[in-house]
């Protein structure tokens, strides 16, 4: 037990000072080179080429005229399908992110306070992480569709009368099915992040706060939450970006129209009318920019609070 209070206090690099100093070395170049190669050529290249195609370069049309301009963007914003898609995407992404963060936080705190079965609970939480999103979507579909398992159960007990009496929560206009599928995977993911953060030196700080007379609520507010804040922040960003840009889940659980921005973009990209390609690229670029801006704003806001 002496061991517990003599654990060195982990310091997040950059936030409260690194545990060990960093070193300068010329060999660093070899360490970072592979990553740079991969990411610059594939990622940056892809992104740039996407932008270029969205303004008309590399046109695949056999048209002699290469029109360079922002026509594709204008077209996108004026298009009904696109507009409806953007609204749907925002709705689904925001709701998924907020709900998964709040629920994951609550569950993680509850798990951390449970002494019995704690390791079992943690194992169960991890269970969803390797499950592919396609399977998750399948599960939600088969369970909550109008002819799914839940509908059969309610029908059996007389709560609903036949498949059409069951509320439409999959392939629905609001996006319930999509949100459910996202939540099913995202909540365990955030739980894993938060639980890792809760396991660290924060337990010593919590004990100290206990000996100073602080109730659980006070400790939560003043000690625990500030400490796990970076983990929550990371998780929220990753989850939001994913929810916004995913293809598989909205395709399987959404309606054909309107569908999320990624689905629309893909449809336009693979459309027989090659003139729609630039529009697809424009959508993709818009998506990236929007997510980027939102993440930046989010970080700025929370950075202020984090510093307090």
């Amino acid at each position, binding site marked *: 037990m002496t061991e517990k*209070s003599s654990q060195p206090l982990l310091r997040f690099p950059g936030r409260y000072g690194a545990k060990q100093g960093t070193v300068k070395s010329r060999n660093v170049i070899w360490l970072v080179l592979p990553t740079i190669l991969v990411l610059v050529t594939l990622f940056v290249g892809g992104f740039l080429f996407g932008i270029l195609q969205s303004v008309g370069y590399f046109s695949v049309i056999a048209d002699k005229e290469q029109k360079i301009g922002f026509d594709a963007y204008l077209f996108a914003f004026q298009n009904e399908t696109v507009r409806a898609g953007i609204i749907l995407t925002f709705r689904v992404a925001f709701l998924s992110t907020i709900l998964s963060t709040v629920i994951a936080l609550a569950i993680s705190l509850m798990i951390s306070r449970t002494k019995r079965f704690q390791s079992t609970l943690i194992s169960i939480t991890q269970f969803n992480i390797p499950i592919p999103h396609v399977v998750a979507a399948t599960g939600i579909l088969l369970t909550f569709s109008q002819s799914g398992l839940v509908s059969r159960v309610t029908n059996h007990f007389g709560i609903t009368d036949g498949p059409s009496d069951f509320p439409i929560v999959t392939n629905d206009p609001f996006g319930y099915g999509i949100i459910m599928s996202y939540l099913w995977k995202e909540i365990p993911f955030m739980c894993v992040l938060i639980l890792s953060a809760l396991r660290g030196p924060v337990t010593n700080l919590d004990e100290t706060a206990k000996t100073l007379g602080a109730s659980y609520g006070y400790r939560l507010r003043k000690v625990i939450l500030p400490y796990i804040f970076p983990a929550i922040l990371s998780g929220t960003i990753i989850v939001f970006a994913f929810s916004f840009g995913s293809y598989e889940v909205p395709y399987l659980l959404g309606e054909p129209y309107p569908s999320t921005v990624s689905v629309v973009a893909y449809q336009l990209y693979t459309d027989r009318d090659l003139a729609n390609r630039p529009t697809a690229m424009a959508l993709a670029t818009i998506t990236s920019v929007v997510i980027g801006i939102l993440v930046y704003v989010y970080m700025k806001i929370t950075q202020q609070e984090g510093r307090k």
Partner: protein
Amino acid sequence: MKKSGIRIENIEKSFGSNPVLKGINLDVSSGQLVSILGSSGCGKTTLLRIVAGLERATSGHVYFSEELQDQITVEKRSIAMVFQKALLFPSMTIGENVAFSLRASKNRPKNIEKKVEDMLELVKLPGFASRRPGELSGGQEQRVSLARALMRNPKVLLLDEPLSALDANLRVEMRNFIREIHDSFEMTTLFVTHDQEEAMALSDKIAFMESGVLEQYDVPQSFVSTPETRKVAKFFGCRNLLTGKIVGNSFETQFGVLTLDSSHSKGSLVAARQEDLTITREKTKHSFPAKVISWQFAGSRISINCEAPNTVDSNSTEIIVESDRFADFEVNEQIHISYDPARLHVILRDS
């Protein structure tokens, strides 16, 4: 707030099948500073944590001024604790750290900032309130930790090896400081340490533990002059633990008969502190023959290894003598070791 005494009654604690505390009974009077001393693994930190309420004992009770504490959770016990690491809350300033217990309580007193400033002055860190934990040295952090704990004005102050992480000079300074604070606040303090010198210098009484058992609970000096068990004698530096048989006021050892200053009815172990023995050329009133084997410097003293030939067999018994003067003797020289019967201590409990 009136300070309270602590009564620890029959505390036992096992972690799984591993017994860490085997029935501890301890009575601390109000206002005393008691050290819980022992080597690593003896259970002293576990005991402290049970008093704090951070652990639950497997059996036994803890009382503060005869008020049973067992069912009271940590945050509601009238304690304050300082750990080995200062554990200042990284998201708060020094001032906010010190004020923590006040803000966490139901009734927030007014003029918290003034109180914080006063407390920081008390721990000789005036004006530090707006600084941040990362900016302070180890010693300063511990003083803040102390200030933070004292702010709670608890009945009982618990310190878990708070000086172990500091370097030697700082440790002496800090322990004097802790004693000062203790005296001015008249707190009841439990101080866990593995450092014998620290315990001796600091405490009103020492509770010496080994392997989950309380070996002796006494004023510091007694541990040297009258150790109650072999383990205590060894820990406090007695290097001559002589086995033998008590006969009246004599102690028959393998190498001869030693005279004691009073009659004892039982006991098979006698502690003879090395500094209470002297080497002489000739026999004296109380002495026995021995041979010098080797010697070495021990700080500013000399430690001399001797061998006293056994009378019962052909082996000899090792005797260590410590002297502050360089006597003129040589290795392998036959000499006599003189002792003072009053300084021989019979150990009654041989654990």
